């Protein structure tokens, strides 16, 4: 009997030990995924600790054009790609300051030309392959290769010469710049670190631009971002799954991201995006028009919240065709005499009712603009740029001083005696910009100008602006990618590829364009913020004074998300909502 009890006791204890061992083993297996392995230098975020699990559904207007981070130019592509990629140093979209990413630390030499970056140890790509300095050297080689033709290449050539990248040891990389670079380590933001073990072959076969297209096999697309591609259904959706090797953890030491997957649905229009969100089919809406925002606010039912983040970095503007047309389009070149007249442009600017644009187009959720830097960019805005209100008398005086006159019935006559009439081109699909053009049409009618609005399909319009130059004036918008003026250097330099009003200038066409060139180059190489700010302040003054573009308004950034989405912290820098996707979780 005693013996029996002892045996029974022994058996129970043995079972308990066995279960304990089993539990420890299971926990250990789980820990490999959830927690840092030995020697793995994870980045700890200070966001609220969340719960793992669940998926996120996001609607996107159009599908990506490519999944190749080096070649992607458009937002739809970048929004998807950058959930799967990571950079060395990252600009925090909320604080707008740089923070460590794949590089845990960096030093800059006193002359501002040598950057030494220390990489995180022990971290892996989304296919489990280890990451080291060779991947960094390879990535920069690809980005700077002229044959690859990355749209970001220009940013990596300060002063026109490439950056020299050295591997010092597997976890240290040195960058030698040909000249000091004003924005400093902001340079590394949005340069994706590529897996050399996957892409080197296609790069050597000169097939890099064709790598990672929409029809590539998901397991081939490998990155260091929080998610990896699971499935891509052309024209319908992209499904991303959690990257189990991601290099960030929360304060409890749990590996991020919390979400199991993200689904991007391609829905076609902004309205469809809002309708899906309102119906609860999607969890985040990345950009809401002011009109749709009021619809969402009105019908708010507690399931979602919408936020107005204030002015973004987008500036909408009217500009005239100042290109050298030679013998082409005599009808347009005849009118260029007016467009080149500074007082004509000033009169137009003075006649435009920017407050009305904000009220009617942005539904009060926007800010009038007199310069291309918005109030959203607190760091670089020059508050001294004058903001004259609408003044038709002043506009008439300006026109009179430039030799314009009026007919009996109020029509404006150019100095040469012809009626002032021109067309404003605008992207037909962009309802806010069509409305802006309609308001300008009515404003300029008060000066006696006859304006025709020409809504064109966006690509047809872009073709006229950048290739054929067959247009008179146009309303467009540019959304800066970063607060730093370097992000728009292509717009202001007379040789820049987005110097819209006058492309391919062999040398600066005007004295003020020459001065802008000089100021932009200087601020690009200065490492003192104060000095750079002074230089860029002057650029803003020159633009506001000479009006190559007549700035109109900036809409507020309006976003929405389900109410129970944790750590949702939208920002005014693109990609407004998903920049901290690894921290998002469901409450």
């Amino acid at each position: 009997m005693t013996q029996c009890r002892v045996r029974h006791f022994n058996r129970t204890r043995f079972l308990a030990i066995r279960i304990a061992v089993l539990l420890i083993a299971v926990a250990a297996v789980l820990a490999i995924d959830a927690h840092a392995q030995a020697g793995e230098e994870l980045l700890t975020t200070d966001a609220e600790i969340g719960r793992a699990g669940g998926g996120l559904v996001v609607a996107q207007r159009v599908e990506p054009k490519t999944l190749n981070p080096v070649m992607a130019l458009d937002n739809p592509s970048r929004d998807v790609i950058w959930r799967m990629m990571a950079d060395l140093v990252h600009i925090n979209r909320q604080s707008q300051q740089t923070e460590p990413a794949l590089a845990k630390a960096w030093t800059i030499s006193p002359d501002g030309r040598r950057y030494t970056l220390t990489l995180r140890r022990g971290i892996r790509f989304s296919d489990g392959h280890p990451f080291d300095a060779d991947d960094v050297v390879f990535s920069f080689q690809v980005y700077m290769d002229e044959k690859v033709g990355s749209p970001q290449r220009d940013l990596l050539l300060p002063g026109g010469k490439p950056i020299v990248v050295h591997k010092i040891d597997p976890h240290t990389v040195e960058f030698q710049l040909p000249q000091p670079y004003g924005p400093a380590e902001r340079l590394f933001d949005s340069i994706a670190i590529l897996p050399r073990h996957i892409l080197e072959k296609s790069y050597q076969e000169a097939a890099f631009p064709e790598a990672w297209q929409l029809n590539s096999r998901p397991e081939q697309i490998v990155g260091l971002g929080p998610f990896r591609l699971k499935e891509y259904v052309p024209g319908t959706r992209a499904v991303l799954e959690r990257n189990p090797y991601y290099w960030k953890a929360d304060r409890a030491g749990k590996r991020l991201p919390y979400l199991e997957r993200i689904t991007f649905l391609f829905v076609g229009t902004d309205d469809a995006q809002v309708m899906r969100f309102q119906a609860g089919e999607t969890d985040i809406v990345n950009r809401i028009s002011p009109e749709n925002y009021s619809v969402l606010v009105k019908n708010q039912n507690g399931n979602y919240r919408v936020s107005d983040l204030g002015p973004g970095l987008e500036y909408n503007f009217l500009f005239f065709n100042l290109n050298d047309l030679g013998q082409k389009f005599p009808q347009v070149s005849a009118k260029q005499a007016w467009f080149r007249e500074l007082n004509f442009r000033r009169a137009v600017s003075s006649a435009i009712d920017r407050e009305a644009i904000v009220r009617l187009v942005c539904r009060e959720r926007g800010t009038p603009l007199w310069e291309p830097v918005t109030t959203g960019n607190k760091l670089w805005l020059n508050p001294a740029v004058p903001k004259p209100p609408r003044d038709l008398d002043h506009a008439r005086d300006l026109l009179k001083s430039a030799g314009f006159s009026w007919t009996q019935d109020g029509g404006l006559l150019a100095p040469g005696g012809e009626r002032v009439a021109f067309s404003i081109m605008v992207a037909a699909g962009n309802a806010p910009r069509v409305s802006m053009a309609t308001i300008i049409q009515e404003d300029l009618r008060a000066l006696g100008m006859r304006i025709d609005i020409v809504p064109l399909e966006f690509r047809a319009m872009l073709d006229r602006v950048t290739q054929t130059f067959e247009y008179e004036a146009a309303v467009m918008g540019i959304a800066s990618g970063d607060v730093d003026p370097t992000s728009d250097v292509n717009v202001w330099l007379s040789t820049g590829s987005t110097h819209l009003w006058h492309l391919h200038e062999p040398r600066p066409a005007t004295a003020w364009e020459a001065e802008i060139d000089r100021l932009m180059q200087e601020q690009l190489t200065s490492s003192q913020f104060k000095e750079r700010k002074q230089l860029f302040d002057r650029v803003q003054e020159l633009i506001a004074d000479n009006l190559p573009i007549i700035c109109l308004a900036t809409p507020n950034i309006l976003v929405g998300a389900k109410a129970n989405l944790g750590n949702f912290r939208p920002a005014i820098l693109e990609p407004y909502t998903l920049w901290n996707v690894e921290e998002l979780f469901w409450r």
Partner: protein
Amino acid sequence: MKKLNQFRVAVYSLIAVHLVILLGGFIAPYDYAIQNRKYPFVAPTRIHVIDGLGHFHIRPFIYGLRYRSPEYIEEDEQMYPIRFLIRGSAYKLAGFLPARIHLFGVDEPARIFLLGTDEYGRDQLSRLLPGGQISLLAGLIAAALSIGIGLLFGIVAGYYGRLSDEIVMRLAEVFMVLPWLYLLLAVKGFLPLNVGPAKSFLLVISVIGLVGWARPARLIRGIVLTAKERNYVIAARGFGASDIYILRRHILPQTMAVVLTQATLLVTTYSLSEMTLSFLGLGVSEPVPSWGNMLASLQQYHVLTSYWWMFAPAFPAILVFWGYYTVANTLQEPTP
């Protein structure tokens, strides 16, 4: 009997709608292009006869408006009585008589918007009426153009036959398969950028009208073919009547029934075509209104869900189309 009543109602409502639209400038209180930028998307103005104190007024009045997000509220401190035959913006009565007197209006600074305003604060009623002029005129002119060409070609093909018949009918087949929407897109692509509203209007109607002649031409040809074999036509020819005489005296009257029904059908079809094109942004350009470009703002989700008065142009359009179809139906029926 019921049919006949329907026919009468249709004819009377057509006359009424056309009359109202013809006198649009007089009935509308404002100019169609005037933007009241303080009042975008204002709902139709409420007309009162009893004031805040409960007093009854014989002359109806309105209150001023103030915007308090997210809606407009009436300011009941000041009443604005509705005045009739009031002086206002200049317009041309029935398209040619310059005038300034409007049927009704209110004193400044108040505004009366019987059908609300659009996104620029333009009075919907003051746009609906000239918009109707454009849309209906487009239908009428394009139909006249189509019928005119159709009549000419139909008679030539039917009466002279042989080679001319062969050529005209093959040409008609080509025109019948032309996708006019794409044709118009292509024509627009070739034009210079600054085509004024008047020119773009003419362009739209002429393309619609020119492309549509084939169907009436085929029908008329059929009528002419049978008519020219009638005994009295052969007799007339025997007496030495000229072609012109025979056509005018004996053949044209035969085609009138077809011409009339075709015309009533084509007016609606072509008005609808103009509305479709303007709805898609290919027709009449801003700020000139047409029922099509007024309805275009409904393509936006927020307008569709929030501002019901933006549907206004759809109702007169439905009435007009119903009227024309009823007339056409009755014309097509054999008389008892």
